[in-house]
């Protein structure tokens, strides 16, 4: 792979990771929410400047630009999508309004779900008047019970157009088994409103977006896709034109929330939501394999949110199959990440009724940002606290490109926290820091413990602009003893994007019986099974051919959602062989399922005599990215003296104000090691080594923060 550029848009900053041969260049610029193409351009310009090349020269010899964007989620949250018309089976028009049981709790924090007096279902993305039912019916086997009435469809479509529909979503019952009626409706709309006419409206069919069972989630997946499509598409056009004008001639690729990346032309809107943190998890998996670490937690402290993801045995181990986007439950195979409102821009305040300090979830974002940013913000934030404590150098933030106003930070903390609590500004800043670290640490602990892990055995990867600044703090709260920081920590998700394979997951809901209740032998018709896999494979080959990859470069893995006949819960298993050839293969499949189930629930819970069903097929297809192995360096024991730039007073809470050594990250070499308290500064992040912790540069040039004087970066196995 030649030169690449990876850009990740976050809530506060936009990050850029460039590989030019063996050279790696990073850049970080404020996110310009008013027009994301502005920060995209600024990120490339800053990267070019740091590379010492012209933007035109940089882009003309770049092989690939990959991008992860928040614009889809933004349009959901801000409700800036188009007016959509939904066409569904008559009698089922209320499906999207009824939702699924506890829909009212989807996407809101747990403390809000307890406030029953205020809780409300979200305002729907479509008005009731924009949902119509057509006369048709297909049964659960895909047989047509009532054919579609084209005149009825035309009448309903016209009604939606008259009510202002600017796009259609078509989602009929059982269409994932038999899409015939959805395709007929698509044809009718296209003939009534052909592409050549100005009144042409886009149409999204649910079986094309998510050919899986579950009428509510399948419909919502199609609705969210259609709702966010226009904004994403419009922004990508702007960016595409901008980079083409500047000399870039190759396709633009987007990072997907399933852990891969593909060209814009082969990406659906629904694939892009939440892709930034997913890229961070993928990057963590890549580094975990490099180090041979089997337990890693990816943590990203940005300006607005704290994101985390779990990596075990060198790979992504958790997926969400019914994720929530804003307030809407959809379906897909999204790499699981957790996010809470805690970051450098989190606003600190004192609850007037309880007299208690609170940090977040409200954020100052990038505008006006923390008080110290000098953009007019008056509320104190975590970054203001770090600045007041002396942890951040106001003259060296973002490499000196942003001058921080210490007085503004002090004034804000004094007014909103110190005065109400009757403490000094420094003590208030310390408490703000401790509280946000504890909040993040608690989130990590909960996430790992609920997955059945001992959080103390995990290595924490620190990512995001404020990750290295806070990682030792929240590691302490978790009980973890090893934190890893990287030269590209502050732009980690952009780095992660650079490690992604070109990948897609092809899915189908198909009910197949493998074994019957209390019956010996196998009931599975392998021909039918293999036909489904072959169909998915054909789809994948065509898709990847259009992406520019021949079939011989493709790698495959088939996963199935399976369950015992008497149960609802499904377990996803990786199938040893994609095609089954006889009873031995089917037996192996059943063994794999029984083992996976026993591992997840307990060996005593496994009950193969109940009979086994297959419910869904997921074919993962990918073209592996080319990766240069990381260079290893000789360790030259040292204490970092050559990198020390001085000392500055830092308030360490109970330890008081301590003259703390400051080191220049770029001048530390593998083998350098020293004890905290210490600060390690680079252009786009500050690493804080608290009292009682130790810092060293390892053989790969990465920074390792460890509790106490002794530690091993290769730790990670169960104690």
């Amino acid at each position: 792979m030649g030169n690449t550029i990876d850009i990740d848009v976050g809530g506060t900053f936009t990050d850029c990771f460039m590989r030019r041969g063996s050279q790696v260049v990073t850049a970080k610029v404020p996110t310009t929410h008013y027009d994301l193409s502005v920060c995209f351009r600024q990120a490339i310009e800053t990267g070019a400047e740091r590379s010492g090349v012209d933007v035109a020269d940089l882009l003309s010899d770049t092989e690939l630009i990959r991008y992860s964007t928040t614009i889809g989620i933004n349009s959901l949250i801000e409700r800036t999508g188009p007016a959509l018309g939904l066409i569904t089976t008559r009698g089922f028009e209320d499906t999207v309004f009824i939702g699924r049981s506890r829909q009212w709790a989807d996407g809101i924090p747990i403390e809000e779900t307890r406030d029953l007096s205020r809780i409300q279902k979200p305002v729907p993305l479509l008005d009731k008047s924009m949902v119509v039912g057509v006369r048709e019916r297909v049964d659960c086997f895909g047989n047509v019970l009532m054919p579609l009435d084209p005149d009825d469809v035309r009448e309903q479509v016209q009604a939606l157009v008259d009510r202002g529909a600017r796009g259609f979503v078509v989602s009929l019952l059982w269409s994932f088994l038999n899409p015939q009626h959805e395709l007929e409706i698509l044809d009718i709309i296209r003939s009534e409103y052909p592409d050549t006419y100005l009144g042409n409206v886009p149409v999204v069919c649910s079986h094309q977006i998510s050919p899986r069972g579950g009428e509510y989630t399948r419909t919502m997946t199609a609705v969210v896709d259609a709702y966010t499509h226009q904004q994403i598409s419009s922004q990508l056009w702007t960016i595409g034109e901008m980079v083409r004008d500047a000399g870039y001639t190759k396709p633009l690729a987007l990072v997907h929330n399933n852990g891969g990346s593909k060209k814009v032309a082969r990406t659906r809107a629904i694939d892009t939501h939440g892709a930034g943190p997913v890229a961070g998890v993928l990057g963590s998996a890549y580094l975990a394999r490099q180090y041979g670490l089997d337990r890693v937690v990816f943590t990203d402290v940005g300006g607005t949110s704290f994101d985390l993801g779990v990596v075990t045995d060198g790979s992504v181990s958790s997926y969400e199959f019914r994720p929530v986007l804003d307030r809407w439950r959809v379906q897909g195979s999204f790499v699981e990440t957790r996010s809470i409102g805690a970051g450098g821009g989190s606003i600190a305040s004192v609850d007037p009724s309880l007299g208690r300090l609170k940090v977040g979830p409200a954020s100052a974002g990038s505008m006006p940002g923390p008080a110290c940013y000098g953009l007019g913000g008056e509320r104190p934030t975590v970054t203001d606290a770090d600045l007041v404590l002396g942890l951040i150098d106001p003259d060296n933030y973002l490499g000196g490109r942003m001058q921080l106003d210490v007085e503004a930070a002090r004034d804000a903390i004094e007014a909103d926290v110190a005065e109400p609590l009757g403490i000094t500004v420094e003590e208030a800043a310390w408490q703000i820091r401790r509280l946000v670290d504890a909040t993040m640490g608690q989130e990590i602990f909960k996430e790992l413990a609920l997955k059945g892990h001992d959080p103390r055995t995990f290595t924490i990867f620190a990512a995001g602009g404020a990750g290295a600044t806070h990682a030792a703090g929240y590691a302490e709260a978790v009980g973890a003893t090893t934190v890893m920081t990287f030269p590209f920590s502050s732009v980690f998700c952009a780095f992660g994007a650079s490690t992604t394979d070109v990948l897609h997951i092809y899915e189908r809901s198909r009910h197949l019986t493998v074994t019957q209740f209390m019956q010996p032998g196998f009931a599975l018709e392998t021909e039918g099974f293999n036909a489904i896999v072959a169909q998915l494979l054909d789809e994948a080959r065509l898709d990847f051919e259009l992406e520019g990859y021949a079939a011989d470069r493709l790698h495959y893995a088939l996963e199935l959602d399976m369950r015992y006949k008497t149960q609802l819960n499904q377990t996803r298993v990786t199938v040893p062989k994609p095609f089954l050839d006889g009873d031995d293969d089917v037996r192996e499949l059943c063994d794999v399922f029984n083992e996976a189930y026993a591992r997840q629930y307990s060996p005593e819970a496994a009950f193969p005599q109940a009979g086994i069903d297959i419910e869904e097929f997921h074919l993962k297809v990918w073209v592996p990215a080319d990766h240069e192995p990381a260079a290893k360096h000789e360790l030259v024991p040292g204490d970092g003296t050559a990198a020390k730039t001085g000392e500055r007073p830092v308030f360490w809470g109970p330890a008081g104000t301590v003259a703390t050594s400051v080191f220049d990250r770029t001048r530390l070499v593998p083998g350098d090691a020293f004890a905290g308290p210490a600060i390690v500064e680079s252009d786009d992040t500050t690493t804080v080594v608290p009292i009682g912790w130790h810092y060293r540069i390892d053989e790969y040039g990465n920074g390792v923060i460890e509790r106490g004087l002794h530690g091993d970066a290769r730790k990670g196995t169960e104690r």
Partner: protein
Amino acid sequence: MSRIASVVRSDALPVPIFTPLVGGFAATITQTSPETFWRSAPAQAAALAETARLFGLDAITVGLDPAALAESAGAEVDWSTGRGVVTSGVPAADAERGLDPGATTVLDVALRLGQTLGGVTDVIGVVPGVATLARLVATESGADAAERLAARLVIEAARGYGEARVDALLVLDDAEGFAAAESAAVRRAERVLANTARFFDIPLLRSVPAGAGADAERIAPAQAALPADEPVTGVPSAVPVTPGAPVSVPAAWYTSAGELDPALPPELLHDLVGALRTDA
């Protein structure tokens, strides 16, 4: 990139640009009453857009009268004379409220003009200088409180203009405001304005009243000057011209010598624009 941004960067443009300060003149041209013009966002936006189109202006200014911003913050303003006269400052109870972007006329006008003129005519969002605005929003709480309030209003207005995607920000002081000593609050507000303009990727301009004799240091942190008489040396500076007077200095960027008189005969402005294009 907008024409103003190009000229501030000293990029070569095919013809000189002319960015006059247009306020009540637009009301006269479109026969809109001053009160309606300054208080009604649709009327003001339509008048400014029409004026820009009629005369082929390269940029149009929004919010030239500082009384408009004061009124949005709660001051009482009399428009009957054609210019806003503040009859009562912002009540102390409203001092902490700040601006409601949805209810601030000048921001609404900027948004509308962006949609109407986008890409054809640059839109300049005008914020009063802190010292100038502080005199208008003065409350019974004293001069320091007025200055703090003015600083907040100016910053919020600048942010609002940025969100409305104007092409440039202009800090406009009257002679008294420009001459006033700069307090720490004023200097901080100006730094915030510069940071805000940088965030929104637009240039920050500074007006210079007649006889002020400003230099580059006085203009900073703004990037360019719109002077009422002599161009400012050391920074990109427009050359002021007067309708009816000959244009003597060839330049890439012209402005009006102060705000265009609402009673200015339109043919004089028309002739001036024609002369500036011919001189290219």
